[in-house]
């Protein structure tokens, strides 16, 4: 599948992805309605991460792209995560 030069994604794939995204959005609104204390932020962010993963994989075509593009994208997100972790290590232990 991924070795095809010009992979045409069927319309229904996009429709399914949209349905999943809408369900995840509604779930994230529902779940933050409960008082989860300190887990509210984590809960909401997990939904956001899953949603952006779907957008990157299907809408942004990464599923059908060559591995090196996936690696580049993964690397940039890893840099972001490292930046956030290092910043918080600083603030939590200063």
């Amino acid at each position, binding site marked *: 599948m991924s070795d095809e030069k010009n992979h045409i994604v069927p*319309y229904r794939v996009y429709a399914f992805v949209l349905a999943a995204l*809408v369900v995840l959005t509604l779930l*994230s*609104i529902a779940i933050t309605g409960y008082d989860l204390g300190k887990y*509210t932020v984590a809960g909401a962010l997990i939904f956001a991460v899953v949603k952006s993963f779907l*957008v990157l994989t299907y*809408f942004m075509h990464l599923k059908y*792209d060559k591995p090196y593009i996936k690696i580049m994208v993964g690397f940039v997100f890893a840099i972001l995560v490292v930046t*956030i972790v290092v910043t918080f290590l600083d603030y939590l232990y200063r």
Partner: protein
Amino acid sequence: MEKVTHAPHDHYDAEASKIGMWLFIFTELLLFGILFVIYSVYRYLNHDAFHLAAADLDTFTGAVNTLILLVSSMTIAMSVTALQKKNKPLTLSLNGITFVIGVVFLVNKYFEWGAKFDHGIFPGSATLAETLSQGEILFFGLYFIMTGLHALHIIIGLVFIAVVMWKVAKGKVHAERSALLENSGLYWHLVDIIWIFLFPLFYLIV
């Protein structure tokens, strides 16, 4: 140096175009990423004030705008399929739908910001400085900067989509030369992803 023998219109490399767009998207991710880091640190330092200030934002408007962007992301993704299937009218209509709902997003944003302005909440306002705590001022500062920068990206995305539509209509972007449409799609999805994080951080977590 060797003489270039290609005619100008032969300079088409779909893969290079895609890499170029992704490299640009990486710079955008780092730009917004740093703003998210600033937000996280200030939230950590001013937990209660952020809690209080976020309650002022209308979750419903935020949710509607989230759905709007998700639908518009799907329509622009579908327009690439339509172009590859050589269906020009459908490509144009799907891009047109994306454009129109992108404008609806901005209209929502206009009313949302307008309501805040009416309550005297805008950067540098007297109400902000006199009645709110330091943490709340920080929250609204970040709110205006981050959603404002995002709205600016929506406007740029709309211009990008309009240009691509014009080129599709003119036949300059077609099934064998679809990189520009795919890149406008990538840009629009990036704007969508940023909103996917802005929405919970500003509207949901209260």
